[in-house]
Structures are given as C-alpha cells and as structure tokens.
C-alpha cells in the first residue's frame, strides 16, 4: 500500500495518480540492447505511468510489423485480468456488480454483498504481449444481503466509498472493515440511488473527497465532503426532475434527468439544458471525460460531447442504441453494449475497432486504464502503443487516418518527441503515397516531414554519388529496396518516378532542405537530367551548382553529354579540359548533338575567356576552321580596361598567317574601335590595295567584287588621315586603273591641281571632280573653298590641255562641265574673276543661273554694307551728341570718387569718360574692351552704347 500513502502528497487525492512501472518490467534479459533504438521512442496514450513498459512492448511490435501488416487497425487489445474461478468459482448466481481500480489494487463488488480485493500485476510475455496476473488478497462480506451497487476508492484517505442497499458508507481499503462513525458526525448516507466523485474538486483540501449524491424520490443533488471517518453535507441543489445519473467536475454537475440532460452549477444554481433524452427507454450515460467536459448518451445511439457551458465542441460519435457504458481513452471513445466493444476515434468520428464481448456489464476507466467486466470476469482493454497503431495504419496504407491519429495525440506527447514522431510519420506517409505514385500528396508530406532528400534519392539506383556518406535511416521509412523493386519492372512507373524526382529535386535544391547535401542533390539531378535528356541539364550546369566532378564525368560521358560535361569542367575551373572536349565534338570525333553551333559557342567562349594562354592556344583551331567567325575571338572581346588584355600588336602579329582574319581584325581595329595608330591604318590600306590589285590582275574580272573592294579602299583613303600617303601612293603610282584613288591621295597631300588633273583629264569624271572639290574643302574656310572651285574651273577651261587630251572627249564636254559647275555652285565663285576667265563666245542664256545668283549675291553684299555703314554713322552721331553734352559741364574727378568699373578711387587725373560723362580708369576701359562686356556688370550709364 506504500504507493497509495505516497499519493497523499498529490494535490488532488482522486486524480488518478501516476504510478511507477513495476520493477520487473524494466529491460532485462530477452532484449538485445541493439534492438532498442533510443532515437525511436514510442508512446502510449494516457498511460504515462507505463511509458517504460510500452516502450519495450512497442519495440517488439516493430520487429513484428511485417507479420502484422495484413491485419486491420488495432487500437486496443482485450486482456483478461480476473478470471471467473478466482471470483465466484462455479456459483452460477453470483455476478459482478461494480469494480474499482486504484493503482495495482482491484476491488470487485458482487451481487451477494461481497467485496473482493485483488492485486493486479501487468506482466509482459517474452513476445511482448501484455497480460495481467491477479492475486486475491481478501474478500469481505458487507452483511447487507444486497448487491454492492458502487465502489469508489479514496486512496488518500485509504477508504473505499461503498454504495449498497441505498446506503453510502466507508470501508478501509486494506482490511475492508466498515469504518465506524466518528464522534462528530455520521459516516453513512441513506436513501442513495447513485453517487459520483469529483475528480476536479474546487476545494484544495487533499484529505477530503467531494462527492455528488442522488437520493430516492427527491429532486435534489447533494454535495458531500468525505473525510477519513465521516461524511459531511455541504450543499444541496434542487433539480426540475428526478435525476438518475450524475457526474461532477468543479462546480458543474452534469445530470441525466427523467427526460433530458442538464448542466447545473451547484455554486451559483445556474442551469443549462442540454438535450432531451428519455431515461425510461435507455439508461442514460453521463461520463466526465476531461476538465469540464462530459460524454453523454444521446438519442439515436449517439455519443454526444458537452462542456460545462452546454456547448458541444466535438462532433458526436455514432455507437449502437443499446450502449451500457462508455468512456474516453484519448483519442478514442470506447463503448460497450451487450455483445461488442466499439472503439471510435474522437478525431474523425470513425469506427476504428470492434471487439466481441459477451455479457458486457461494466466499462470504466481508472487512471487511464480501461477496465471492463462481464457478469463473471474482469478484463483490461490495453491500448496499443500509439506508434504501433500508427504503424499499423501505415502498413495498411491508411495514410490519412495515421496522420489524424498522430496529430490528434499531440497534446499527450512532449513537444520535442511529438515533432520527431510527426516528422517520421509524415515521411513514411509520403513514401507510401510515393509508392502509389501519388506524387502530389507525397511531395507535400515530404515537405512537411522535412525529409532528408537523400532518402528519396537513394531509392534510385546509382544516383547517389559514390563518395556520399549517406546511409538510410533505420528503421527504414519504407519497404522498398529500390526503384526497381517498387515498380516491379514496370518501366512506365520507373519513368514517372524519375520525372517526379526531377521536379522534386528541382524544387528543393535551392531551399534549406538541401542544406548539407547539396552535392548529393545536384549530382543526382545532373544524372537524372542526363539520363532523361532533360533540357534543364544545361541550366543546372550553367548556374551555381554543387555537382561532383568525379561522379558526373563518367555519367555524362555515358550519355554522350559532352557539351554539358564541358560546362561542368568550366564550372570547376578546368576550361582547358572543357575546350579540348568541345573541340573534339566540333571536329566530329565525339558525338553530341546538344548544340549544332558548338563551333560558334567555342568562339564565344574563347572570346570571353580571361585566360589568354587558352585563347592563344585554341584561336588557331578556330581560325583555321572559319577565319570569319574565328576572328570574333579578338574582335568581340568585351571591352575591358584590363592591362593584361590582348594587345592589338600581338594579335596582328599572331594573325599574320590568317590573312582573311587579319583583314577583319584590322577593319575592326581601325573602323570600329577607331584606333589612332598609323601602323594599322597603313596596314589596312595596304591590304585593301593589295586586294584590289590582285583582283585587277586576275584574268577573269569579277566586276562586282572589284567595285566593292575599291569602294572600301576609297572610303578608307578618304576618311582616314593617319596612313602614310606617300607610301600608298608609291604603290599605285603607275597604275592607270586606280585614278580615283590616286586623286584622293593627291588631295590628301594638298596637291589639288594634280588630283583635279587626273579626275578631269585622265578619268574624265566630272561629278567625281566636283565631289572631290567639295570633299577637299569640306573642313576649310570659304577662301580655300573658292580657291579650289576656281582651280577646277580653270582645269575645265584650260584650252592648252584640252587640245592635247585624248581624243573622244570634245572640249564641249569640258565646257558643259564648267557651265554646270558655275550654275550649281555660283555662290562660291568670285564672279568678276569668272567673267574674266570665260570665253567670249558663251551665251548669256547659258550662264543665266550663275549670273543671276552672282548679281543677287553682289547686290546683297552691297546692301548689307550700306546698312552697316548707316548704323555706324548713326552711332557716331550719337556719340558726338553725348560728347557735346558732357563738354558743357566739368567732369569731376577726385581721390574720393570711385571708378564705375572697378570701384577703386582715382589716383591720377587721367581718366576716360564713358558715354554719359562717367569717368573711369583708363586701364579699366582697356580691360573692358579686351573682355566681352557680358562678363562684367555694366554701369547704368554705359547701357545705351
């Protein structure tokens, strides 16, 4: 009885005290210590006292999971506690009337007015099956010849409260002797039909027990305090009808009346009707299940929940019409009828288990232990460990139910342990759904369960890098050896699983899920991409990744993903290896159709490659393959200020043997980058010239090519001022085909007469001559321009040469050109000089446009100068007027007067008078004349000048 005495120190004597697990249930022989996985705790619901026991039980259960896999869900197991022969032997008329259990002590009241006292020990068989052994300690006849209707233990007082023959009295828990009434008051209550003990009393006194009592033919409920040797009435409340069942929590009485249930606060008298119920038809059930919450039998075979406010916070469960007893063993509602025990989940209201049970009579829960009695024997309904129940559900693929059960048990498990359990169940659930190819659900559960993604990867053969230290979690999260085992050879399934993994890894690789195993994730993803010929392979490799080189190289080679492999090499800083590989692919030594433009890619790569050694090494290959594109390596390099970047001189030297590329490069340097180096300009001009000359020397002339080549040459000669003119000129001195070019070069040398001579007399290209004049004078002043135009006119009109020039072109052509020139550019010429030069015989009509323009220009000049003259004259008059005005009065200059321009005083008598008679320093005026007057503020008096 020691542990009962010990519970006196408990605040509420009747709250079911937690007991230590029996010593002999501690781990002992029979368990291999390796079988006990400390990271795999298991829990019991409400059975805190037996956590230890159940832990070991559950471990055994886990070992046998595969055996149980086919079985349906079992939440409880029915275990015999007290067999018939221990109680009444073969006496047929003796029945069990009531039971009470307190710790290991089981009390049974019978219809022949006996109380039997047993010691109930839980023993675990080697197989882990729970069982009970009972030892009879005592039995006692109460002497009333009536059935013992009710028994309740008050362990703190070491008393049993007994209801027999309508009398409530106390007996000693050990001796079962009736306690005599104390001097101060009685220890008996008469006329009682039913009573209940308040397990959540408001009074804090641990040495008394509060109880609610229903009496014969009285519409009242009485509240008594029970002490060691007396009972004391503390409160009496009336009810609207005769009550027939009662339960008590705090101040709240939950009552079954004749026609309804109600909640009654015995302290305030406030009442709350719950719902109608005919207690004549069916025995009402009122069971306190939790703080201020009751379970009631409702019409239609319902188990209704009601709290002290009269509100139902849980959905009802649907049990049978003929329920005799019901109770809650979280998260289950256990109900008993004549032939079955039914077990419903409070979480989803579903029927979870049905156990056949004949002659069921009593169903009670003591300290979380569900005890049942038939009329002849006592049983314990042992809940299976939660983990076991969950595993059973998972084993039968009832994922939703397993999760509901897990989450529902949250409040019964310490938070950290719950989280571990919950995660594991979520992961297992995910794998079950994965096995059923329900990928969406599986993913969600993996996510919520924070699955180590390698668990999933390791299902797929060969995906994990060889270097990975990962080992699967033990016990395993799933039953699959690998993907082939899962798919049973169905290749379509395998493919779907792979596609799922691709999308899953793609999603998690950048999240914290992949922390710590990025190499494994990225390598697996790379392998999948390569194998599935997935487009994202390149994206993966081109962006930040953690793919392992050693593992990926053979894989990519196997799937001929050489381009991708090159990217991987590049990502790992092995550009040389990447280039070698790509060049082999581009040359057709290796086959990989990822990029048809691999050659261009390599060129681009070299173009942006910062390692110049590599550039020099592989540029040759690129140039040999296609100089036009290969030269991009040099021409398209991103402009960098870096000193170490390619030196154009080196490039030009390097390109010496690739003439085509050299030309393109020089064009790039000269025409696009506009380098101001004479070398390149001259070099380019020479190359252009050589091209033209070689085209000219060909026997079959391609006119189009020639024209284009010459246009380029001419453009360069015209626009560049840097090349060595004499050198170029020397190269074409005696070439009759390149007259225009020679003219341009002469123009560059300011030898305009030579140039014009070539154009007019040798080439006879008057528009070009005119264009030349315009070009040559384009950046010069008008006098220079006039000079050139006159020069051209002179060449046109030079009769001495006209006669000598080659036949076929009449002098009339030259005259016409002269006329056109005059008429088109009349404004440039000095008309008087022109008229003097012109031959007498020309008609006025011919020169009409020129003359008209010349006359108009001269008129314009004349009138403009007249206006200027007039204005100057008037200014002069004005000044004279001012001067006269100022002369009339003296202009005073003293050392105290300041100069209007510099505001310093005068020190000498020499001053200058501004218009208006303002004296200023001579040097100030001189400075003002030098500088524009807008720079300095003007004095008022000088404004009108």
């Amino acid at each position, binding site marked *: 009885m020691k542990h009962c005495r010990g519970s006196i120190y408990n605040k509420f004597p009747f709250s079911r005290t937690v007991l230590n697990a029996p010593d002999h249930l501690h781990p002992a022989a029979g368990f291999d210590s390796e079988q006990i996985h400390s990271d795999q705790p298991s829990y019991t619901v409400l059975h805190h006292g037996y956590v230890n026991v159940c832990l070991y039980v559950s471990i055994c259960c886990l070992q046998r999971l595969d055996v149980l896999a086919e079985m349906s869900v079992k939440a409880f197991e029915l275990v015999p506690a007290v067999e018939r022969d221990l109680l009444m032997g073969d006496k047929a008329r003796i029945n069990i009337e009531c039971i009470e259990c307190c710790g290991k002590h089981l009390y049974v009241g019978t219809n022949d007015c006996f109380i039997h006292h047993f010691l109930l020990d839980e023993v675990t068989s080697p197989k882990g099956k729970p069982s009970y052994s009972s030892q009879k300690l005592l039995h006692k006849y109460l002497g009333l010849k009536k059935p013992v209707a009710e028994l309740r233990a008050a362990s703190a007082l070491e008393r049993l409260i007994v209801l027999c023959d309508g009398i409530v009295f106390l007996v000693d828990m050990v001796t079962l002797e009736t306690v005599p009434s104390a001097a101060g008051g009685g220890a008996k209550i008469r006329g009682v039909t039913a009573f209940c003990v308040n397990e959540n009393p408001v009074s804090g006194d641990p040495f008394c027990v509060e109880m609610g009592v229903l009496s014969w033919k009285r519409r009242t409920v009485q509240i008594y305090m029970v002490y060691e040797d007396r009972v004391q009435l503390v409160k009496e409340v009336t009810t609207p009808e005769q009550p027939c069942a009662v339960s008590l929590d705090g101040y709240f009485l939950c009552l079954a009346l004749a026609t309804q249930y109600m909640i009654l606060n015995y302290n305030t008298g406030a009442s709350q*009707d*719950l*719902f*109608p*119920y005919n207690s004549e038809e069916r025995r009402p059930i009122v069971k306190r299940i939790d703080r201020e919450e009751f379970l009631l039998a*409702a*019409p*239609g075979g*319902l188990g*209704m929940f*009601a709290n002290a*406010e*009269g*509100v*139902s*916070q849980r*959905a*009802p*469960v*649907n049990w049978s019409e003929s329920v005799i007893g019901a109770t809650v063993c979280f998260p289950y509602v256990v109900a008993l009828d004549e032939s079955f025990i039914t077990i419903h989940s409070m*979480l*989803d*209201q579903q029927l979870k288990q049905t156990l056949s049970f004949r002659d069921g009579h009593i169903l009670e829960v003591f300290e979380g232990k569900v005890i049942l009695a038939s009329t002849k024997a006592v049983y314990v309904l042992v809940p299976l460990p939660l983990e076991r129940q969950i595993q059973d559900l998972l084993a039968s693929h009832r994922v*939703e139910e397993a*999760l*509901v059960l897990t*989450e*529902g048990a*949250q*409040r019964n498990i310490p938070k950290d342990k719950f989280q571990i359990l919950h995660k594991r169940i979520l992961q297992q659930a995910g794998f079950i759904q994965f096995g059923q190819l329900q990928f969406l659900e599986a993913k969600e559960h993996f996510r919520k369960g924070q699955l180590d993604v390698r668990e999933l990867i390791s299902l797929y053969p060969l995906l994990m890098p060889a270097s990975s230290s990962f080992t699967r979690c033990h016990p395993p999260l799933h039953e699959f050896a690998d993907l082939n085992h899962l798919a049973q050879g169905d290749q379509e399934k395998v493919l779907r699983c792979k596609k799922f993994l691709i999308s899953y890894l793609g999603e998690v690789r950048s999240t914290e899920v992949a922390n710590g195993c990025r190499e494994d994730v990225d390598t697996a993803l790379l392998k999948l991409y390569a194998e599935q010929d997935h487009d994202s392979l390149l994206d993966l490799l081109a962006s930040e990744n953690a793919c392992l080189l050693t593992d990926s190289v053979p894989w990519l080679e196997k799937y001929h993903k050489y381009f991708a492999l090159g990217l991987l090499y590049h990502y790992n800083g092995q550009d040389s290896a990447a280039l070698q590989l790509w060049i082999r692919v581009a040359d057709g030594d290796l086959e990989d159709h990822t990029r048809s433009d691999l050659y261009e890619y390599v060129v681009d790569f070299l173009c942006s490659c910062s390692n110049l050694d590599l550039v020099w090494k592989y540029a040759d290959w690129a140039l040999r393959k296609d100089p036009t594109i290969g030269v991009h390596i040099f021409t398209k390099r991103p402009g960098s200020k870096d000193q170490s970047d390619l030196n154009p001189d080196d490039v030009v030297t390097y390109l010496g043997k690739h003439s085509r590329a050299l030309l393109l490069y020089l064009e790039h340097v000269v025409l696009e980058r506009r380098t101001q180096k004479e070398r390149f300009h001259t070099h380019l001009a020479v190359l252009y010239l050589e091209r033209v000359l070689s085209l000219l020397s060909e026997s079959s002339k391609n006119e189009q090519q020639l024209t284009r080549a010459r246009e380029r040459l001419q453009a360069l000669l015209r626009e560049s001022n840097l090349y060595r003119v004499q050198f170029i000129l020397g190269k074409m001195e005696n070439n009759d085909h390149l007259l225009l070019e020679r003219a341009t070069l002469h123009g560059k040398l300011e030898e305009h007469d030579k140039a014009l001579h070539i154009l007019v007399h040798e080439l006879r290209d008057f528009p070009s001559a005119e264009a030349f004049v315009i070009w040559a004078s384009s950046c010069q002043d008008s006098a220079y321009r006039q000079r050139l135009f006159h020069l051209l006119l002179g060449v046109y009109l030079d009769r001495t040469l006209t006669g000598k020039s080659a036949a076929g072109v009449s002098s009339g052509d030259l005259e016409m050109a002269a006329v056109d020139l005059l008429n088109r550019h009349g404004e440039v010429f000095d008309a008087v000089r022109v008229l003097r030069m012109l031959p007498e015989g020309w008609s006025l009509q011919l020169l009409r446009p020129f003359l008209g323009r010349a006359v108009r220009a001269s008129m314009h000049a004349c009138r403009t100068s007249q206006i200027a003259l007039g204005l100057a004259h008037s200014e002069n008059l004005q000044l004279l007027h001012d001067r006269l005005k100022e002369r009339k009065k003296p202009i005073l200059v003293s050392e105290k007067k300041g100069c209007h321009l510099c505001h310093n005083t005068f020190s000498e008598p020499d001053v200058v008078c501004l218009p208006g008679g303002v004296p200023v320093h001579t040097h100030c005026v001189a400075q003002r004349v030098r500088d524009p007057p807008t720079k300095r503020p003007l004095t008022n008096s000088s404004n009108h000048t």
Partner: protein
Amino acid sequence: MPESSKMKKPDVKVVLLGDMNVGKTSLLHRYTEKKFKDTISTVGGAFFLKQWGPYNISIWDTAGREQFHGLGSMYCRGAAAVILTYDVTNWQSLAELEERFLSLTDTANLDCIYAVVGNKADLTDPKAQRPQETDVVSEDRTECEEDQTEPQVTSACPTPPASPASLSGLMLHQQVTHEDAVAFYGRILRYKGLDENNSLPAEKMCFETSAKTGYNVNTLFETLFDLVLPSILRKRNENQESPTVDLEECRGATGKRSRSACC
C-alpha cells in the same frame, strides 16, 4: 477531413440547420472539398474547421432527421451565424424551418445572424446549372453521381418524386420562390424581436444555391464569414477581459498591444 482534427480552438461557430435531404452536408462538402459527392444521411452531426484569415471558424453540419432534433439547440448554443436551409423544390422544407428549426436558434448568440438558403437551385434556375467559375473541379464524375443520388433525395421528399428522366429534360416547378424566402426572413426577424431596419436586409441574407453545380456556394459562406468577423472580435475582447488567465491568449494580446504602441 484532416483539417477538422487539428483541434484548434474555433473562434466562432456557424451552424447549418434544415430538414433532412435539403442538402446541408452537400453544401458543406461543396464548399470545403469543391466536390459534389454522394452523402449519406448525417448521424448526429459533424463539423468542419475553416481557416478564415487569422480566425478559425467551425461549421457544424447537423442531422436533419427528426430523431436528432433534440440536439439542435445544443449545436446552436453560442452560434454566431445560422444557415437555415431548405429545398427550393420542396415547399414543406421551408415550412419545417419555421415550425421546427427556428426555435432551436434560441440558444444562439444574441447578435447571431441568419441566412435563409434555398438549395438545389440547379433544378429550377437555368443559371444555377452551369458549373461555377470558382469550382472548376466539378468534373464529369459528379454529373454521373447525380443520377444515382438525386432520385433518392427526391423520393425522400414529401413532394411527388420525379422520375430520373424528367430531371434531365423538364424543369421542376419551383415550389418555393425567392419571395417566400424573403418573407420567411422577415418572420425570423420578428420572431427574434429584431427591428428590420437595424438588421441585415433580406436581399443580402436570402440565397439560392446549388451544391451540385457549386452555384452561389462560396458566395454564401464567404458572405457569412465576413459578417461574423465583428462577432469574433467581440468574443476575443471578452476573453481578454475575463478573469481567467489564458497564457496563450495573454501572450497574443500583449504582443498585439506592444506592437500598436510602438507604431
């Protein structure tokens, strides 16, 4: 129904009341699962927890059968909104609301709001027949199921049972008009002793829905949730003032206060 198991404390309660076979369970199903599926006659009652913004709303689906009628007032206790449901093809179902169910709402909150909902509108209203925009999930499968369930439903009604053939072809005569529902809503207010001018207008609180097509279902629940928000806030304030010290609540409340103070 994993949501219902999370054991979150609901902030507010909404109750569906109505005669059997009017489609209370189907309405709730349609709203929560976006499906119309075979339901069996509800036993006792069931509830569903809906997360609405920061609040948890429990929606109670009650049993329409006479047998469970006694439980109704318990379900309604403390309700912030009651959805009185009838079947638009069954005039009796509206009459039952007034005769049997209205009195159950006596236990609801004083500021409880009432919605009158005519379900099965797809049988009378062409615009309720098309699947609803938000409920695209109403696949063909639900269409097939309808043939099995609907005859059972109608045969259980006091109205003459329509043959399955007539359902697809002919339009059933609408036995309950919208005006009937509006008039009933007026009588609810009178029964509650509420002034019509200070209460929510009938136009806003009378709905016609179809759980089968999803017509108006989301509108119904979401309108109600928005309307009960003040009730939630009031209840939260009351809780804060109560002498019971709820550690969790307090933490939330002080957190809120300090936040508003620093702003």
